[in-house]
């Protein structure tokens, strides 16, 4: 209805007027979530590979833990990270609270289980004979693991994309550890929450629309990168 149409119009206006506040918010969102996904991938993919490919006591329990943490509410993560980074908390010395770095930390904790869990799923879908074939061609165990990850690369990529989607769209954890400070820790989702609370629905929708379009473009370019292999 009215608000939605007004939102569409405002979205175009915000972008074309090169409104510096809007662009700052967009940029920070991409920085924070982008960095978080990068770190989560560096942690989550090897973790997922390790759990999936090796046998060790407690493997099943660890898998259940990963699956559980995939569904952790962002608000809870935000609260826990806040308590750690707080002045009165164990890591207060670092003075990281209410900074983008704190937001990256919180989102990394949020996204790593997701990437790990989906990596596990992707890797277990790989034909068991691949590992045998690789080994018979002379691969050592690291090389076999890497080969299996490469076989599952589309699944792993989907894991990363899922992780990014989760990060860029969440507000619960970044608002707690970032504080939604104008000019330094305000991102798209916290700005949308603020605009909504203030009753500026069309602005909130406009920002939401920009967020969706942004996600779409990023997904598109990620898939395009993989298309080159003729898939």
């Amino acid at each position: 209805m009215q608000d939605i149409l007004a939102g569409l119009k405002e979205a175009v206006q915000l972008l074309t007027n090169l409104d510096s506040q809007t662009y700052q918010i967009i940029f920070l969102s991409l920085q924070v979530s982008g960095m978080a996904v990068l770190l989560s991938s560096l942690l989550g993919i090897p973790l997922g590979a390790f759990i999936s490919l090796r046998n060790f006591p407690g493997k099943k329990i660890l898998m259940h833990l990963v699956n559980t943490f995939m569904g952790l509410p962002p608000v809870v993560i935000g609260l826990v990270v806040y308590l750690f980074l707080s002045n009165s908390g164990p890591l207060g010395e670092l003075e990281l609270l209410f900074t983008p770095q704190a937001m990256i930390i919180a989102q990394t904790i949020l996204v790593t289980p997701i990437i790990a869990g989906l990596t596990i799923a992707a890797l277990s879908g790989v034909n068991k004979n691949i590992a045998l074939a690789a080994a018979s061609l002379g691969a050592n165990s690291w090389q076999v693991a890497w080969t299996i990850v490469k076989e599952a690369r589309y699944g792993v990529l989907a894991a990363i994309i899922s992780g990014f989607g989760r990060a860029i769209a969440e507000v619960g954890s970044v608002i707690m550890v970032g504080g939604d400070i104008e000019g330094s820790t305000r991102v798209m989702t916290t700005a949308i929450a603020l605009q909504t609370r203030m009753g500026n629905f069309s602005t909130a929708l406009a920002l939401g629309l920009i967020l969706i379009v942004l996600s779409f473009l990023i997904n598109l370019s990620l898939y395009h990168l993989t298309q080159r292999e003729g898939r």
Partner: protein
Amino acid sequence: MFKKKGLACLLTLCLLIISLFAMAPMAMAKSDNHLTIATTTSLNDTGLLKKLVPIFEKKYHAQVDVIAVGTGQALEIARKGDADMVMVHSKSQEMEFINQGYGEGRNIFACNHFAIVGPKSNPAHIKGYDLPEIMQAIAKSKSTFISRGDKSGTNTKELSLWKEAGIQPNGSWYLESGTGMGATLMMANEKKAYTLTDKATFWTYEGKDRLPNLTILVDGGKSLLNVYSAIAVNPNKVKGVNYSLAVRFIQFMKDMDTQKIIRNFGKDDYGQPLFIPKILMRKDQLQ
């Protein structure tokens, strides 16, 4: 083929890492001229701080971060030393904060009045300024009342009104929403219910035609007084707070120039000012 893909990945990676370093200076900014204020969303959303903070920042070459959350959360953040001062409007919670040793003292800088809004049909037939009578009328008629239920300044005032009227609000007519003021008003509008609100939020939403079913029924009076105060966190109790800058900001709030700005704030947008600055508050209002 591989080269192009690899190049794109490398480029993105470099961009991310560069931007991370670009963000680093922000973390280093915590120094002597950095102040963190924890305040309530309703105060922040009026835009008053947005107007005053830059003036302070310029005058004292300071950097001020404003964290707007619920009253309870603001005070908790201050207890943990993650804020150097608070600006809230909930006397009972403020006194608790001070009695626990976390705050130095209340520095009132402004006030305004809450309002009771409700359906135009006014089923409980409330009028006048006798709040205990009004609250009893609402309870007796079991007219729907929406409460914030979140220990916010508004919620604290609402609960004190029930207490003064000798009523424990309970029953299917009393709904606790747990959402912000704007969302609560919209809920009251939907359900044609009564609620307590600050006027700024009400005027904002009314101005956007979102509250066609509601109108202001009780517009002021002593019981609906809403007093804003600033409290510096006690450096003897909480380590690492920027006490001197907090004191300076509190003084700034009481400066004549600042008080003048507060007196006129909101006239353009709402037709009348949103606050009564301290200099204009009567003795009996300074509570």
